[in-house]
């Protein structure tokens, strides 16, 4: 190796780092401030908001790492291209203990810090983050004793909803009031489904015989998508609906109207319960 060539090697490193720093300085704020607000699942509820924050943070962390790899890759393509056309042996490579240690410590620190941060937001700051926590939730938000209970009933292939504090009436449509803590009690009448209210940031398994609880607090009114997130048979794709977050007065009016709309069926309903075991399943089984 000539002296001229070895003198150039450190300059490559500095150039790569400089390019990487400039690109990161441009991309990171763009990701956080421009793309960030549009990352899923939005900001309709505090739970959805904390999920979005997690997406923003992970994307922002990913950017410098991805840019370092891409910068190095492109730089090598351009600068270290073999222009002679012949096949020549490159200079030998030796391990660099310092670089390896730095890499392990850095990535280890990032992963551990994310684990700590993720656990903290899941348990302490966002109380389950809208996920189903089973019949006895560990991460209870403040005031959960007064949460509005709404039962979500899955069945092949439709969702229905019951409001135990409003006489246990059942409805084909789902509405919840804004700025109110809601406790979804998700269950199933037949097989496993999954209640996914996208904009609410809620996803909870609907398992027969299980009362799966998920909390949510909507920040503003609007529509949200409901999907079944567990492949459940022929008409799985048909288990899609639109739910609504209403202002409290609008919600009260909706309750009244929904009771009337669904009046004919109510007398046949099973008494309200955390779980149900409808007889026809046993008959057909």
């Amino acid at each position, binding site marked *: 190796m000539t002296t001229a060539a070895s003198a150039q090697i450190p300059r490559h490193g500095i150039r790569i780092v400089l390019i990487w720093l400039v690109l990161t300085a441009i991309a990171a704020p763009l990701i956080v401030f421009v793309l960030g607000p549009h990352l899923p699942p939005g900001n309709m509820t505090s739970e959805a908001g904390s999920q979005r924050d997690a997406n923003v943070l992970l994307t922002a962390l990913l950017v410098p790492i991805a840019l370092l790899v891409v910068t190095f890759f492109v730089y090598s393509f351009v600068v270290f291209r073999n222009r002679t056309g012949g096949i020549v042996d490159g200079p030998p490579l030796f391990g660099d203990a310092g670089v390896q240690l730095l890499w392990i410590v850095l990535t280890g620190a990032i992963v551990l810090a994310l684990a700590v941060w993720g656990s903290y937001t899941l348990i302490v700051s966002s109380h389950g983050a809208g996920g189903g926590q089973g019949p006895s939730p560990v991460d209870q938000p403040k005031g959960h004793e007064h949460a509005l209970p709404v039962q979500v009933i899955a069945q092949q292939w439709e969702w229905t909803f019951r409001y135990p504090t409003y006489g246990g009436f059942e409805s084909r449509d789902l509405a919840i009031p804004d700025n109110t803590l809601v406790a979804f009690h998700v269950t199933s009448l037949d097989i496993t489904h999954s209640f996914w209210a996208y904009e609410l940031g809620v996803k909870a398994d609907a398992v027969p015989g299980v009362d799966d609880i998920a909390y949510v607090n909507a920040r503003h009114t609007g529509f949200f998508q409901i999907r079944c997130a567990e492949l459940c048979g*022929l008409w799985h794709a048909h288990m899609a609906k639109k739910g609504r977050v209403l202002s409290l007065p609008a919600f009260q009016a909706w309750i009244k109207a929904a009771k009337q709309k669904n009046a004919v069926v109510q007398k046949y309903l099973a008494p309200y319960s955390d779980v149900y075991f409808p007889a026809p399943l046993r008959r057909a089984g």
Partner: protein
Amino acid sequence: MSTAARLALVAAGIAAGAALIAYYIASYLTQTPPVVAATGNMPSASLTLQTVASLGFKPHPDWVSYLAKNPAGKWVHSTVLRVPAHSTINVTIYQFDTATGLRNPFWGEPRGIANATMTVDGKPLKVLDPDLASHTFAIPDLGVSVPLKGVADDAKNQCSVAPCTLAEAHTTVKFSFKTDKPGKFRWQCFVPCAAGFPLGFGGPMQSLGYMDGYLEVVG
């Protein structure tokens, strides 16, 4: 292995593959139920169907099934129905099967039909007792879902071989719905009525010609 033997092996493999594909195409063509057209034209046509507890003949004599009446008045083992677009379709379903029951009384409420009312044995009904339901006739994409009242378990003269006749124990369900623009819509019974299958949802529930079919809306 000699070259001839290898060639023979490859040729045999190709022949076996071709035979399988031919069998698949042939069975698709022969097992897809024939289209049954509704009687009448725009703006109003009528469909007449029946449900039976067991078909009584091959290929699945013990499967629960729908049948459809063609304009000539003959019962056809099919669930592929053709109806006119932008029309009122008057449906009559003769129910020869006994009740299975509904998992949720909500399926007992007829939806997507005129006046939200069906008639059962001549009597108008806005909701069916969930314990009495046998099947549903549902076209999800058109919002139609109608529960069908089953025959009493202890009824005399129950039908066991399709097509059943009106002399045998049955209930008569009538309703009408509107078609819009042309299209092909899948329809389905939503009651887990496939006895002997896991949770009542296999076999006839997922087979064209039995509890699953197409509604072809033509312009």
